[in-house]
């Protein structure tokens, strides 16, 4: 399989998306691999819920995989992200392993947070994922701080703050954007606009039509992209991270997408129509990406099948690993409240 952009025109005559030449075929297939793994993880999480194996609440990102993986395409382990309550996808997109993730989801000692955090706090600091967050908007200023630190330490790292459309009405959002802008920090603010905050449609919560419109108040460039298109999101993310690394300051990306599951397990979906949900399901980001990779000759049907088979097998192994892992010892309840002396 050809790894780099070649001269073959696309089948229908349109140009290939720009990012298909910036990334190699192997990198693109890795992106697909991560999107598929997110989907399998979320389905496993949902299933373990239904079967009474997991505890607490959870927020699934099914339908939003292209945003998570597209944004992380230009990032390395040295770059930072701050995530949200709906954070499983961000974590996998940043390169996390399924075993310690699922173990955390089930509250086991082998989990990324040793069972202390659970679904809403899954983190992977070793790969720059500073953590999911139980507080809407909580991660935005933290990403600005990570960017300040990266800049002061002379590193080339950027910090990405993921947040939802609902979070754009918290004071923390506005303060964080302003701070990043006045200090020209290498931050990318990524709004995953999935149209709703729980039951509240963005038109009912937000005076601006687009979250991106708010960037101009902080003298920051912004762009709106199709959040269900890997290529569109990744292209915007490359532009924003290139800008940040060049010292030109923060960018806001608004990815329009949709969560096809309820907000959390307690959702009765009374605030939206079945037709609306179905229309977005028809725009499945993974199906679309697979079709593009095939059409542009960047992945074969066999390769795609192998990616899917591998994700299933790895997820099954992760579930098995988590279920076989020990639960934390109550005697260690206060461990890690403070650092060792």
């Amino acid at each position, binding site marked *: 399989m050809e790894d780099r952009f070649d001269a073959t025109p696309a089948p229908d005559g349109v140009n290939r998306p720009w990012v298909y030449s910036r990334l190699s075929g192997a990198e693109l297939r890795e992106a697909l691999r991560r999107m598929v793994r997110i989907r399998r993880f979320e389905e496993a999480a949902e299933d373990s819920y239904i079967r009474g194996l997991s*505890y*607490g*609440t959870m927020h699934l990102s099914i339908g939003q995989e292209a945003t998570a993986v597209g944004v992380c395409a230009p990032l390395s382990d040295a770059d930072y992200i701050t995530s949200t309550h709906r954070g499983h996808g961000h974590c996998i997109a940043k390169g996390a392993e399924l075993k310690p993730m699922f173990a955390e989801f089930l*509250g*086991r000692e082998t989990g990324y*947070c040793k*069972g*202390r*955090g*659970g*679904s*809403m*706090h899954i983190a992977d600091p070793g790969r720059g994922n500073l953590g999911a*967050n*139980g*507080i*809407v*908007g*909580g991660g935005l200023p933290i990403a600005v701080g990570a960017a300040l630190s990266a800049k002061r330490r002379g590193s080339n790292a950027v910090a990405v703050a993921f947040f939802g459309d*609902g*979070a754009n*009405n*918290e*004071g923390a959002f506005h303060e964080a954007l302003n701070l990043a802008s006045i200090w020209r920090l290498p931050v990318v603010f990524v709004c995953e606009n999935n149209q709703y*905050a*729980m*039951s*509240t449609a963005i038109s*009912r*919560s*937000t005076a601006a039509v687009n979250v991106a419109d708010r960037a101009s108040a902080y003298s920051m460039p912004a762009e709106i992209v199709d959040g269900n298109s890997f290529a569109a999101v990744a292209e915007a993310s490359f532009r924003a991270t290139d800008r940040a690394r060049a010292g030109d300051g923060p960018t806001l990306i608004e990815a329009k997408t949709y969560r096809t599951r309820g907000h959390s397990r*307690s*959702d*009765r979906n*009374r*605030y939206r129509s079945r037709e609306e949900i179905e229309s977005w399901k028809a725009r499945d980001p993974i199906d679309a990406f697979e079709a593009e990779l095939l059409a542009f000759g960047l992945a074969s049907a066999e390769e795609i099948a192998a990616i899917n088979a591998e994700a299933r097998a790895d997820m099954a192994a992760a579930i098995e690993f988590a279920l076989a892992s020990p*639960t*934390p010892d*109550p005697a*260690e*309840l*206060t461990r890690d*409240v403070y650092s060792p002396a």
Partner: protein
Amino acid sequence: MANDTRELTYAEAIREALAIALAADERVFLMGEDIGVYGGAFQVTGDLVDRFGEERVMDTPISELGAAGVAVGAALTGLRPVFEFQFSDFSLLAMEQIVNQAAKLRYMLGGAVNVPVVFRMPTGSGLGGAAQHSQSIEAWFAHVPGLKVVEPSTPYDVKGMLLSAIADPDPVIVFEHKLLYKTKGPVPEGDYRVALDRAALRREGRDLTIVAFGIMALRALEAAETLAQEGVDAEVIDLRCLRPLDREAIVASVKKTTRLLTVYEGVKTLGLGAEISALVAESEAFDYLDAPILRLGGAEAPIPYSPALEKAATPQVEDIVAAARRLAHGRA
């Protein structure tokens, strides 16, 4: 049970209180995130939006600081807002308006104004919410002059206290333990009031006094039954009101039993039990004490996710039984 008394859940009792207040007083309105068509994060407001409309049951954006401030401003100028936080943890984003503004405005303005706002706060652990959705921060608010703070433990009390809170001229914080929402109890129909400054004596006993509130009041009562089988006769006071504290009820009980155990879910250090202990130590009941006062509070840690750890982080019935046993059988 009186004719007009039925079994309701704690959540239904709250909803009924809200409906009575909304129907009786057009100045009353509800604010909160997803309290309308979603019915509230814990399904407390339920169908109220269908009955009273979106202006009286007002969804807010996720803007705790701003929206709480809007409630304060509306209360300051003649309305009676009842504000729901989805979790008490999120009130921390609105601390400025609650503590710097609502609690102090009347005093700062020399008594010229009042702020009749109610903040409802689902509190506590036990549902796997982890560190940012499970805290018990009652003591933070009970520390603030100008606020009244209550935590009812029964459907009867929560309805009567919420109606009192809405009618009260000053800011009232109502903590509702999440594990109580589905518990049931007798609730009369119609409007009735429960005072915002009185504890309830839930069980009379001779050997020791257990002072608890919220879910811990129920656990203390359960513990008292086990203790009774062992010949330990515990008196249980359900504090209900955390600011002001019902000093007389506590002191009178301790003088009678000569032993005091306080039980609370919030972090033990500097929690409600510390204040109750100090209150008794400063009172005439001190000379009656036959053993040191014992506090049973939450662990000195954030609430962890894993169920085994989560349970260990707060007092359980067995812990109360064990502590009471030690206290009753001599020195703690």
